[in-house]
């Protein structure tokens, strides 16, 4: 029924406009509340994973590092988006930027933005042919992570001749990025010296099995500058030495060298001493005052070995260096190790060295004193210690020069060489030991590699046909049929 044209409006024009204005203001107010809710929600956001595989979650250590940031850290992703790592890198860095507003993310696609790419490279003096990397920068300090570092690969199939495929085993992005953030924001510049002149493993050697090039990478990942040192003649341990690495010396040290090392330790030096089988270095005079005894033997543990020369050890102590390994249920693989035991120094004062045995063999271990003759009943048997850590705290009013002394001694140096560093949790141990020695307590945690889960499913043509028929025919057809039935019944 149409309203008569002459009927008066139920609302005056003024009231209508008043109502409209009222609605407009209410809508604006609610919209403001929506914006506010989103703003506050973004500031106090939480991300939780409902999946058992928390591969997309950052580790507690990374969160701890990000919470501690006081200044902006710029992370530039210089990548071709078609590269295999791009997706993983962006997902990971998105988590970083969501976890901390201090992380400023920038991307450069060198394919579509060549001018910006050139400018960036010129600004950071990067090699012209360098591409596909992440640059973490803070206050003119930068750390570069190349694409090749981001994954661990499984070469097993290729080596066994089962195929030409090299599969990605794990993604190391979080470990590298967090490490880079820590190192560029750490105001201290640390320097590690590798002792040479006694047949030690070389940190410059990246290809030879016995080289320490890959261990040197662990140090570089922690922004530690590397140097070489020979204590011959008048040379002494430099004042800027944050860490002295003695990696598998083979020949004897003379008295003057031992005195220099002893002085360095007494001044609060940090030393990572890795001994090897049949070494003639004879460093017990140096270690004895620090409560460590190096056995002249070869430790075997037949029940826990993968070959004649290796020992798999997982009986860790509760020291910070090995606690994360113990908590994660990891093990180390050592090769012809010597025993490294804690011994009494006789000192009982508060400032006497605190010695802790880090790891022992199983109770079936035997310290064979004469490897040629093999195990004898007279040999030491039981849980044989293979590593020790020593700390001697600083005393009030006494200036030790470098701070408190820290020392890690292992009975095997091969475990961290290029060939074996990635066996078991050896690399994690190296990471832990280095950061404990450098007093980077925040890094004494474990950001393990994230396994790359590669999945496959296989369906035969028949199975595919069944699924296709089910999904494209049966399910929609059944719904439609039921609908028609309902419709037909209602028509009747």
């Amino acid at each position, binding site marked *: 029924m149409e309203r008569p044209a002459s009927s008066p409006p139920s609302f005056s024009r003024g009231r*209508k406009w008043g109502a409209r204005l009222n609605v407009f203001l209410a809508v604006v107010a609610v919209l403001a509340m929506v914006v506010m809710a989103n703003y506050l929600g973004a500031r106090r*956001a939480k991300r939780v994973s409902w*999946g058992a595989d928390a591969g997309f979650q950052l580790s507690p250590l990374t969160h701890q590092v990000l919470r501690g940031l006081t200044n902006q850290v710029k992370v530039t992703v210089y990548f071709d988006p078609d590269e295999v790592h791009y997706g993983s890198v962006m997902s990971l860095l998105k988590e970083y*930027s969501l976890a901390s507003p201090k992380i400023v993310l920038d991307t450069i696609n060198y394919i579509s933005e060549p001018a910006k790419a050139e400018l960036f490279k010129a600004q950071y003096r990067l090699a012209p042919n360098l591409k596909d990397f992440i640059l973490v920068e803070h206050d003119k300090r930068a750390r570069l992570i190349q694409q090749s570092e981001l994954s661990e690969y499984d070469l097993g199939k290729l080596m066994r001749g089962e195929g030409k495929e090299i599969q990605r085993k794990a993604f190391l992005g979080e470990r590298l990025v967090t490490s880079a953030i820590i190192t560029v924001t750490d105001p201290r510049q640390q320097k590690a010296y590798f002792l040479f002149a006694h047949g030690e493993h070389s940190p410059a050697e990246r290809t030879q099995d016995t080289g320490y090039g890959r261990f040197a990478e662990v140090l570089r990942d922690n922004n530690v500058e590397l140097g070489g040192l020979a204590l011959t003649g008048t040379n002494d341990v430099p004042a800027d030495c944050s860490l002295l690495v003695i990696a598998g010396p083979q020949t004897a040290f003379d008295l003057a060298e031992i005195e220099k090392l002893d002085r360095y330790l007494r001044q609060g030096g940090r030393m990572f001493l890795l001994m090897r089988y049949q070494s003639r270095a004879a460093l017990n005079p140096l270690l004895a005052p620090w409560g460590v005894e190096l056995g002249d033997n070869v430790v075997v543990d037949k029940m826990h070995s993968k070959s004649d020369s290796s020992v798999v050890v997982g009986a860790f102590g509760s020291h910070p260096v090995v606690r994360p390994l113990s908590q994660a249920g990891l093990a180390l693989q050592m090769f012809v190790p010597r025993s490294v035991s804690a011994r009494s120094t006789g000192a009982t004062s508060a400032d006497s060295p605190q010695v802790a045995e880090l790891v022992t063999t199983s109770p079936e271990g035997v310290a064979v004193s004469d490897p040629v003759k093999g195990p004898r009943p007279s040999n030491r048997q039981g849980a044989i210690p293979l590593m020790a850590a020593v700390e001697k705290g600083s005393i009030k009013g006494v200036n030790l020069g470098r701070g408190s002394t820290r020392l890690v001694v292992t009975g095997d140096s091969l475990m961290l060489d290029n060939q074996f560093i990635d066996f078991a949790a050896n690399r994690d141990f190296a990471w832990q030991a280095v950061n404990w020695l450098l007093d980077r307590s925040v890094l004494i945690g474990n950001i393990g590699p994230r396994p790359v889960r590669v999945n496959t*499913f296989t369906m035969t043509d028949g199975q595919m046909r069944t699924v296709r028929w089910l*999904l494209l025919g049966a399910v929609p057809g059944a719904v439609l049929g039921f609908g*028609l039935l309902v*419709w037909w019944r209602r028509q009747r």
Partner: protein
Amino acid sequence: MQKFLTLVRRELGGYFVSLTGYVIIAGVQLLTGMSFVILLKALNGQPFDMPVTEKFYETGFFWIILLLAVPLITMRVFAQEKFSGTYETLMTAPVGELAVVLAKFLGALLFFVAAWLPLLAYPYVLRRYSLDLGQVESGIVASAFLGVFLVGGLFVSIGCFASSLTRSQMIAAMNAFALCMGFFLLSFLSTLLAPQPGWQTKLFAHISMIEHMRDFSRGIVDTRHVVYYASLTVFFLFLTLKSVESRRWK
């Protein structure tokens, strides 16, 4: 409460006694099935390193279904009542306008959920043929469905608002489609523009439905996304309420 539940029941009944409701469900099932079959063909025998739920939501079909189905579901909620003349009867019934709006929204949302329910079985079809059973985790499937529910809630509220503006179902569907599409297209700002320092990147990421759905399909539940969808859903329901109330003073 009883009146509210009666209204919800009436609304749901409206979908399930008409052929249109079943056609919509069958259409949704056909498109999701097609999307799944295409995915299966692409992945068959090929190694892949992301959760299969993420792969599924990356297919264009998923968004096509959402963008098409919701306007078809919601176009009738108010427009049909206005067209058939039952609107005034409903609005003069002893129930508040808020209850009417919420009942219609809830009815449409429940129907939307019902249309998607069979999808729950799809990951388990894959599980039957997967060599790695861990690939289909219940937690990830649940979070992916939470994403579908939240996006669906927003789109349904938009559809209710569009339907409350007109008496033509066709116009209501077109308006809803345009608005939903607008929100969806905003997502492309974050995918087209690479991350750069500044607030724009954060804003675009915050409003990007594609990014949100990627997180949900990986099993990540981010409170930012939940707040975004919940607040916008409330906003559009508020607009719908004001639109319904406008009959008093128009």
